[in-house]
């Protein structure tokens, strides 16, 4: 019963019928009923609350989900996004460790017995979807995936339930990147007992594959059929991540505990599995196929350590294999199987105690890793980028060089307005995992800022060919057009991204920017507000709204919005600058200057605050200071016409006409756009006339 409720809820959620989904998970007339499916159910409920703007309930449920299953990274991510996380160590603590351990041990005992049954049930499900509609980036590109997702959990849950009482675990999609991606390799439905299942596998999963799965992971890679799938797979969001991460984490652990087969700490599956997979992949290295993890994995042994204990098999039917061609799109199924190798089983039988200790070690290490990653992610969500960077530095080399971590680091640099570094990191991330789409929208924005047309268009093409249905790809394409000032086409592309996933806040923000460029402020405001509905902490939308109001001369509103944006991301010098500008328009010049000073300190490379400061000083008639600042600016940006024009204006005010003429001439020599030419020339003509009212210049 509870499983069907959960399935129903997932289906409703996919179709955006949030009310029904909520009713299914926590019916109004039974206030004390338990949420079905434990952690996953709480997670889904949390998502529903989040999208219906009930933040505190959402936070509650995510916390509960994490307490039931500390390895549900997706829930942790959501908490970070909502800005409600205390500290990663709270969630990935020793209490969590003992909990996992318990779950593990209880499972392992019953495991052997139920293996047979489970396999069967698992097999049937085959499709495994990712943990419920990956909230953030539902890449449910295809109906298949949706089906899969809905089916999977339920089925799995059913399977699991038999097995172990509260295995929430099954719901995690522990995608092993390996599995997914690589197409061929993929391990399609690697069921838990891959071995046993080999026989039972039917349908999509290639039975043959099963057996071969372990070893041939690599081979699969070669096939590269899943390229497309892999794209999709990667785009997957959080939930997968959890498994992935656990996988990663376990990789390390794997080496210790692999032989033991159970070693892999985390219950979710994957860990060991992944690891195994990873290792293989890593050897492959092409890394391309794999998302983050792979690269790092390093040459660990392929012997996937499987842990019998693990139950949760989310079997993800992978499209790979024969089916793959057919169901390429659906792919994203990760199979989290615990597939055990024969010997493992033997081992298992014999060495339970050994297994246990490894288990404990594994859990601890995994939690340690999750703690670090969690801290880093939390900091970057709170936009404390500097601290986030420090935390990420603590990771081991292997972990550091994965796509996910590298793109998080790139994102942190981006928030600090350090575009060159950010671009460098994203480039690395792309090299490590070329098919990962997450965070690529930010990379395209960075390239837009750096005006790298070639790279941007190349990136956009690649992303689209990787995954035509991912909003990030279309965002990149739109950025490309916007860079060439073709705002209408850019807008079309962003609208496509919005259609593909209306819960992807950045697409809305970018459409807002395009509307503003086309001077359609009304629609721009609507777009920004939609973005804020999805994610209230998306400071770009607050910034966009501020800009619109600034243009419409509604300075109070502008200041309010910039301040909100600044509150969310206090490290961006551009935001500080704009806040200063709006304060200046409100004639609160002292505060404006203060804010600008902060901006200058925050990022000495940014010329904008200096320029604004000069502007403000000019209006305050502190000409000499203004000139000093402009001189400084001259050094770092000698080709900038506005600097010379402003200097000319100041000299004109000071009645030093020759200097004024000199600077105006300089400005004109640098070929400013026509409007400026008009202004400057008329200023030159009026040079010897007294200044009229206002600042005609």
């Amino acid at each position, binding site marked *: 019963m509870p499983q069907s409720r959960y399935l129903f809820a997932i289906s409703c959620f996919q179709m955006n019928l949030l009310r029904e989904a909520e009713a299914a998970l926590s019916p109004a007339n039974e206030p004390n009923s338990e949420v079905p499916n434990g952690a996953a159910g709480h997670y889904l409920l949390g998502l529903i609350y989040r999208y219906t703007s009930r933040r505190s309930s959402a936070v509650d449920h995510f916390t509960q989900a994490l307490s039931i299953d500390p390895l549900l990274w997706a829930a942790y991510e959501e908490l970070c996004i909502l800005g409600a996380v205390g500290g990663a160590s709270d969630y990935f603590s020793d209490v969590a460790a003992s909990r996992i351990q318990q779950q593990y041990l209880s499972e392992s005992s019953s495991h052997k017995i139920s293996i047979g049954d489970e396999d069967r049930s698992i097999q049937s499900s085959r499709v495994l979807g990712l943990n419920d509609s990956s909230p953030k980036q539902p890449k449910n590109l295809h109906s298949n995936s949706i089906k899969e997702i809905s089916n999977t959990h339920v089925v799995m849950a059913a399977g699991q339930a038999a097995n172990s009482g509260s295995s929430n675990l099954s719901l995690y999609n522990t995608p092993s990147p390996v599995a997914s991606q690589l197409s061929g390799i993929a391990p399609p439905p690697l069921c838990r007992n891959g071995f046993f299942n080999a026989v039972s596998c039917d349908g999509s999963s290639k039975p043959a594959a099963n057996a071969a799965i372990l070893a041939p992971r690599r081979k699969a890679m070669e096939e590269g059929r899943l390229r497309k799938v892999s794209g999709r797979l990667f785009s997957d969001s959080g939930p997968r991540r959890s498994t992935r991460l656990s996988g990663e984490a376990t990789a390390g652990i794997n080496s210790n505990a692999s032989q033991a087969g159970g070693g892999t700490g985390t219950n979710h599956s994957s860990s060991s599995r992944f690891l195994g997979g990873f290792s293989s992949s890593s050897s492959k290295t092409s890394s391309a196929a794999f998302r983050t993890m792979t690269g790092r994995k390093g040459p660990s042994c392929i012997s996937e350590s499987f842990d019998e204990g693990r139950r949760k098999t989310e079997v993800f039917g992978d499209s790979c294999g024969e089916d793959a061609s057919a169901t390429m799109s659906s792919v994203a199924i990760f199979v989290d199987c615990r597939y055990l190798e024969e010997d493992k089983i033997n081992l298992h039988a014999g060495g339970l105690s050994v297994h246990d200790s490894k288990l404990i070690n594994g859990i601890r290490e995994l939690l340690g890793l999750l703690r670090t990653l969690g801290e880093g992610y939390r900091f970057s969500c709170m936009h404390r980028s500097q601290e986030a960077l420090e935390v990420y530095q603590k990771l081991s080399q292997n972990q550091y060089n994965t796509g996910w971590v590298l793109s998080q680091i790139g994102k942190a640099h981006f928030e600090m307005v350090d575009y060159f570094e950010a671009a460098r990191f994203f480039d690395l991330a792309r090299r490590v995992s070329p098919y990962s789409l997450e965070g690529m929208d930010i990379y395209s924005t960075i390239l837009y800022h750096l005006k790298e047309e070639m790279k941007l268009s190349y990136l956009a093409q690649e992303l689209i060919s990787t995954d035509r249905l991912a909003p990030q790809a279309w965002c990149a394409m739109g950025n490309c057009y916007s860079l060439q000032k073709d705002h209408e086409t850019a807008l079309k592309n962003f609208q496509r991204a919005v259609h593909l996933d209306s819960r992807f806040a950045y697409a809305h923000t970018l459409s807002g*920017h395009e509307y503003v460029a086309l001077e359609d402020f009304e629609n721009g405001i609507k777009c920004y507000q939609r973005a804020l509905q999805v994610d209230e902490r998306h400071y770009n939308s607050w*910034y966009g709204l501020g800009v619109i109001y600034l243009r419409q001369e509604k300075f109070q509103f502008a200041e309010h919005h910039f301040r909100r944006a600044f509150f969310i991301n206090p490290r961006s010098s551009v935001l500080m600058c704009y806040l200063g500008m709006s304060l200046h328009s409100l004639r609160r010049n002292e505060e404006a200057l203060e804010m600008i000073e902060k901006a200058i300190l925050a990022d000495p490379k940014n010329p904008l605050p200096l320029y604004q400061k000069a502007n403000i000083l000019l209006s305050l008639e502190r000409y000499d200071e203004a000139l000093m600042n402009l001189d400084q600016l001259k050094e770092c940006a000698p080709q900038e016409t506005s600097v010379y024009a402003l200097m000319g204006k100041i000299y004109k005010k000071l009645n030093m006409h020759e200097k004024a003429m000199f600077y105006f001439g300089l400005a004109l020599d640098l070929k400013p756009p*026509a409007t400026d030419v008009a202004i400057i020339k008329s200023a030159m003509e009026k040079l010897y006339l007294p200044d009229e009212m206002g600042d005609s210049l």
Partner: protein
Amino acid sequence: MATESEGEEDAATAAGKLTGIPQLSVEDDLREMANKAAWSVSSCKPGNGVLSLRDDNLDTYWQSDGAQPHLVNIQFQKKVKLQLLVLYVDFKLDESYTPSKISIRAGDGFHNLKEIKTVELVKPVGWVHISLSGTDPRETFIHTFMLQLAVLSNHLNGRDTHIRQIKVYGPRPNPVPRQPFHFTSPEFITYSCLR
């Protein structure tokens, strides 16, 4: 409709004879301004109405159907800066329907239009670029609510006229709001806004 104003002194600075070029060549810092404007014509033949002037299709044309001068009125919602007017005409296809003398007027409304430019076309084929600027650098743009294009006479003394497309260009707004000047160097532009 519009009263023809004298403005002879302005006509004196009218451009010389224009012939039109096959390519539309507009500078990058200009953008098309009249998408949100209200377009109207003094008369038209059914099937060849004002929509043909804005459909980006050079095969469809507007054909007038009344007495000369034939007028195309463009009314904006607020005062805008305009710099360039471009129209596509084709003598080879239209012969006696091709406009020959065109007068451009600007003002706040029908009641106070003033002629700002007169041009003469000589067997034009292609896009005819008519700059709206004056000689003074301060007059690079005209600020106006309304623009009127009057076809005073056609080639070979034709009565009605064909015009295939009209576009109006003005400067781009400064992407950074409330700035006196545009930023031109990459260092500034990179940091000038968030996205």
